[in-house]
Structure formats: C-alpha cells, structure tokens
C-alpha cells in the first residue's frame, strides 16, 4: 500500500491509499486474464475496455497487450477528485498507455446512466471487456430508493446491444450491501419462477437463505440480476464467482459473465436451465492467492443432465 507521507504548503494532508494489491485480488486478475485469452484469442491487441481500474491501473497494465483502447472511469474522493484522476493519468503516462486511454471522470453509475462523464465526454461504446470493480456493494440504492447501480448496468447492456456487441462483463463488489431484503426477495422470485417451470427448488432456496455466508446468496443474486437486466438482448454464460478477503479485511466477491448478443425473440426471461445453473453454480474461494471450489454445502437442483455449458465451464475453471 502506498500512502501519502506528509503535506506542507498550507493545507493539511491526509492518508491517501493508492494501491490495494493483495495476492487474492491478483489471482482474480489472473483468472480474468484467462477468460480474456480464452474468448478473444484471435483479437489480441484489438480489444476495447471500459472499467474502474483505480489509479494504479493494475488490471489494465496486466492486460494491456490485449487492448487497443481503454476507457477508464475514476471518481476520486469527494472534493479531491482531481488527485485520483491525476494519479491515474500519471500511471498511464508512465507506462505509455495514455495514448490508448480515455479518462472518464465521475461516478460509474452516473456515467453509464447519462452516457457521458461529469465533463460531457461521451462513453465511446462499444467495448469487449467491461470491468465494474466496485468498491462498494452492488445492491446500492440512493436516498430515494432507486437502484441506480442496477439501472446503470441496464443502460450499459442496452448501449452495448445497440452496437450488436458480445462482451465479457467482470463485476467485483463487496458484501457490504444495503440489502433491505432485496436478496431474499430475489431468491423467492427464483423459487416461484422455477415452480412455474415445474421444478421444486424450495430446499435449495432455503439453504441459500439460511446459509451463514452472505457469499452463498450473493453468488446467486448477481448472476440473476445480470441475467434479468440483459435478458432482452443477451444470453449469459456465467462463470464461477470467486470470493476472497480483500484489502483491509473487506469481503469481496468477483463475477464474470460472457454476454452473447441474441435476437430479441430468442432472449427473454431466464430459462429453467439458466435459473438452475445459477443456483447450482459453485464458487471459488481464494486464500493467499490459492483457489478452492465450494458449493457451500447447498443441495443442487436436479433437472436432468448438467448442461454442456456448465460442464465446459467447470473444466475450464478447474484446469
């Protein structure tokens, strides 16, 4: 961790955290890198990135060979936004990336919703990889109760879909959710939807709801949310999420999903296969940079054979 050491010149200084390198986060980056390599091996050097890389841009630096453009969003700390944004550009300059990089200033949710940053710079859609490395939770709602984060992700999907873009979505969030019953409601929704499709899932749902780890619920909630928000345009291929202890002991969870653009009549509500897949999808937990798979001890829903997709993904993730 790099810290601001001292300040002089009339304004008091304060601690500035510039990097959050941990072995666990590094492992997550490596897994993401494998996904990028796997899905874009024929387009190395030609990809477009949108994300929240923080001022050290560790992700971007590690993946840079695959990309020809980076749109990076940096909000900074209120009142001192310019410091973080400046540092991000410094990193880009030092590594010769500035010419391939566009800095979008402001809050990611607002930028996605408005289609432009705080200074009117438009988001240059489309992107091949979108990395939403949130410092907070995903079930963020503003004071008026609007789920701005979810809405903003929906805007992203719509814009990407209008460009006919398949893409890889990477989402990191912590478990510091202002849940307000949202996750519980979603799990009950899934239960009802499966019931309509003739699948009994009450035992599995209950196990999720009662599980002592919030990760067990979040690993269902986020893929379901992504699936619902993108259902009009995309088919989702979810990969096993990874949960880990991040910087300062923060409990983090990382999701990756491949969104395939489909004709609207093909897409729509999640199928029972999809819902079952989301519930059954195991997760990795990462300790000291090592991955271990877990199903949280939750019973799986059996609706026939495991899909080829799931099988393939498991083989890849475990390889």
């Amino acid at each position: 961790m790099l810290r601001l050491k001292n300040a002089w010149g009339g304004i008091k200084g304060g601690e500035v955290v510039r990097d959050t390198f941990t072995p666990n986060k590094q492992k997550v980056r490596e897994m993401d890198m494998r996904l990028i390599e796997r899905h874009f091996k024929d387009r190395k050097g030609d990809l477009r990135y949108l994300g929240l890389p923080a001022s050290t841009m560790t992700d971007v630096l590690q993946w840079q060979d695959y990309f020809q453009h980076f749109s990076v969003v940096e909000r900074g700390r209120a009142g001192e936004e310019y410091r973080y944004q400046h540092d991000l550009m410094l990193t880009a300059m030092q590594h010769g990336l500035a010419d391939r990089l566009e800095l979008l200033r402001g809050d990611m949710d607002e930028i996605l919703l408005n289609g432009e940053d705080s200074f009117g710079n438009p988001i240059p859609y489309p992107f091949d990889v979108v990395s939403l490395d949130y410092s907070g939770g995903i079930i963020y709602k503003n004071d008026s109760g609007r789920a701005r984060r979810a809405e903003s992700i929906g805007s992203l999907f719509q814009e990407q879909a209008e460009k006919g873009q398949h893409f890889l979505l990477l989402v990191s969030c912590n478990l510091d959710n202002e849940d307000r019953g949202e996750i519980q409601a979603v799990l009950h929704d899934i239960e009802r939807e499966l019931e309509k499709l003739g699948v009994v899932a009450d035992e599995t749902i209950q196990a999720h709801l009662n599980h002592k780890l919030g990760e067990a619920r979040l690993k269902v909630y986020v893929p379901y949310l992504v699936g619902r928000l993108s259902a009009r345009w995309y088919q989702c291929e979810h990969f096993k999420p990874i949960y880990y202890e991040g910087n300062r002991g923060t409990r983090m969870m990382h999701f990756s999903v491949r969104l395939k653009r489909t004709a609207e009549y093909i897409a729509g509500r999640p199928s029972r296969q999809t819902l079952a897949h989301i519930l059954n999808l195991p997760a990795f937990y990462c300790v000291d940079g090592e991955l271990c798979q877990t199903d949280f001890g939750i019973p799986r829903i059996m609706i026939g054979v495991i899909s080829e997709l799931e099988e393939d993904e498991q083989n890849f993730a475990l390889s």
Partner: protein
Amino acid sequence: MTDLTREPEEIVLQTEEYAYGFIIEVLTRGLYPNKFHVIREYVQNSYDAIRTWRRRSGQPDYGRVHINISPPSIFIYDDGIGMDRAKISQYRYVGYSEKRTGEGVGFRGIGKLSGISVAEKLIVTSSPAGVAERYKLVFDANEMLAHILTLKMDGKNIPLNELIRSHTNITTEDEERGRHYTLVELYKVQDDSKSLMDEDKLAEYLGMNVPVAFNPEFPYCTVIDAWLREYVSDYDTVSLCLNGQHIFKPYLSDLKSPQNIFVWSDDGQPQQIDEGKGEGESHSEPLSFCWYCEHTKKGQLGDRLRRGLFYRVKNFAVGTNQLPRITLWRSSPERSFYFFGEIHVCDPDVVPSSERDNFEQNEARDRLYEQGVQISRTLNRIAGKSSARRRAQEYVLRAEEVIGGVQGELENGQIPREVKFDKMFAVRSAMEDVEKRLRDASEEVKQRGEEVIERGHQLIRQLDGAEAGEATVGVYDIKQTLKLGPEAAHVYEIIVTCLKDEFGDESERYERLVKRIHVALEERMGGNKGWRSGT
C-alpha cells in the same frame, strides 16, 4: 545537488518579502495573449529536464514528452530528471529559477506558473531520479484569483508569500526509486482558453515552435539535422507526442537542396560550411547559423505561415516568419519568402522576450540583426540570380517560339511581302533579348540560347532573300499571285501604305488586316490559295 534537508520555508523567507498578491493577477492574465505559449512553457521545462537527464545518464537520444488532451484537462508528461522536494517547493515562487541565462530554455521562473492563467488548477507531480518519493503540487488558481478579487473589492492586498501558501498544497507520496518524471496537469481549462483543446491547432503550433525533429518525409531532414548538430552547440530535439500522434517540424515541397550560412560576430563575409571542412579559421564568435532551401519555382512559396525563415533559440522558435523579414531585409523583403529555412541563434546573450515574439533589446540582439543582414544579402543575391536565370530561360523559350513560328510560316509560304520586315524585326528582337540574358542562364539554357540565335540569323538571311512570287514556299506577293494590273496594284499599294501608317506600331494587327484583305481579294478574284491554309 539540492540540499534536501533544507526546509522549503527558508526559501519563502528569502524571496517574497516585498511582493504582493496583485502581481499574480498581472502575471497570469496579461502575459500570454497567445494561449498556446502556455503549453510551450511546459514543453520548455520538459525539454530542459530531459536534456539534464541526457547529460547525466550519457544517453543522447533519451526522453520523451507526451501531451494528452483529455477534457477538461491537458497533461504534459516528461521522463526527464524530475524535481526534488526543494525544487517542487520553489516551483511555487514567482520569478524563482535556478537556471541561469543560457543554461536552459526557461530561466525567468514565470512560465512554470503560466498554467494558472488558463486553468482552474495547476497540478504538478514530479519524482526525482534516485529518490523513492514523488511530490505533488496543487496550485488552486481559481480560488486564488477569487481571493484577490475579494481583497481588491475591499481595498486590501496580501503579501505574495501568504497568498501562494494559502492556495497551494504539496504532498509527498512513495514512488519507485528508479522513476524520474514530471507530470503537469492543467485541470479544468477555462472557457476563454478552450482553443488549447483543439488537437489540430495545438499540433500545428507545437510543430512550428518546439524543438521536435524534422519530419522524416522531408527529403533534406538528415543533412540539415547533421549540420545543426555539428554547428549549433545547443541544438537538440526531443520526441513529442500529442494524443499519440508524433509531432514533427513541418516542411514545404518544391524546394531545392539546402544551403547554409554561418554569421560571425566580426564583419567578415558569411561563410558556407562545406561537408567535412569544419568551421574555418580565425573567426570570432558565431552569432547564428542559417540553413535555407530555395523555392524551385518562380516567386514566393505558397504556404503563408511556413514559408520564409524562422529564428530559433535552442531549437525553440522565436517570432514568426515575419521577424527575420523585418529585421534582416533592408531591400526586396518579398524575397525572404522565396526561401524556407531557419536561423539558429548561437550567441547566448541573445535572449528571447517573454512573449517569444522577438528578442530582448540589448547589444547582442543589435549585433545579431546587424550581422544577420549578410543572410538577407546572400539570399537576395541568390533570389536575384534565380530570377535572372529564370528570365533567361523564359526569353530563350520565347525566342524559340517566335523563330519557330516565323520559320514555319516561311516554309508554308504564309508570309506576305508587306510584313516581311516586321517578321525580321520580331526575330531580331527575340535574338537580342536572348543575347542580353545569356550570361545569367544555366549551361543548358545557354546552349539552347546560342542555338536559337544561330537559327535566328539563318532565318533573317532566308527572309531577306525570299521573294518567291507565286511560290508556296517563302514570302508571297499578292499582286503577283492575283496578277493585278498596274492600276489595281497601285491602288493596292496606296491602301497598304495607309494601313502601315495607321497600324505600323501594332504589327500583329497590321498583319491580320493585310491577310484579311488578301483573303477578300482572293475570294473575289481567285488565285493561289496556298498561303491561306494558315490564316
């Protein structure tokens, strides 16, 4: 090396006792009428930092400057030597610079703060070589100018020291020891300076004003660069990219191969440097080195902004192409634009003005201009020679045309007897014009000129002896052709004589009239039509 243990506050006490805050307003608002000069100021600092590192590291080609326009900011980055804690502290102080005149490009200690005239904040982060720290200076210009305005309205002022301290902030952060760089951000470029965000205009400005390399597509880039590296001691270039686009010095097309002139402080003749011969002997101090390329075509070069000569100091431009024209050309100033080139000032006592539109008035400048007249004289002479050569060529071409035309008419029997002497006169005139200008002509043109004169002599002899009557070759007589009787012939002679009196000075018109009469007579009276074929 600067003493890092010294507290920045010590410098403050030494430098700011008698300065007051309003000076900031004057410096920031009035100093840069051309906003692009602000960017040049930071490129100058980058250039100095890179050259310092080149000297220290022994890597003559090291270093790059990157400029990135990223609204609402402009970033200027260099990987030069960087600034240590003391220097970043001094950075805040108006008029403070450790650079001596002639040492670096900047030296007044003002340009570094020029950013506060165009942006709401000036943010500078720098890490010095060999120190595992970086320093970030934030200069809140907007807040400071608002503060000054408030004080003004209250009829108060504030010591400069206090003003700057209350609106700047320096922080120290960790950095990798091996890194050395400076990043300047002009944060929130103000509305009246938005032209800075125009990438094309900024690229054009940078190409013409900062010490970037010649465009590799310029056919003479290598030879000129080699001259400058050999003969201009402080000449150097730096790699500069603007939003990923390499910036080069612009060049013009239709140029002859380059020549050069060295101007010395004594009043000797300007000296052209020959490859491998060095600088010659027993001269005093070099004042300037000029390279130039002459336009291959007639007249001035077309590009109004880029044609002519440009003064450069340490390879930064000073003034426009009008400055050498005004300061060096005592006669035929239009001829300065027959050339494309640069005058690199070698005398360290010649100092650019703050605005860089001229040099500071001093003895050195007077000497530069006085001795520099040698450049304009040389170039005027070259331009004069080229004009004369071009004129000689034009006259030879004209003579070839006139003589060829008359020759053709003669061979086809199309010359009426009445205009024979006019034809001879035209041929003689063309020959005389060529003869007069042959000494200015190139060898090739001279040879052609001599040939055309010889052809002219032969043609005159032919015309003189050609009275072919009805013949279809040579000079014809209409009276014989139509077999006019004595009275008709007499009437015809009277008419032609009148016409000659009236239109004798307009030979072409006269010839046309005569030929019209011949056609009319021929139509009514019949006869040989051979001569009509060419009318």
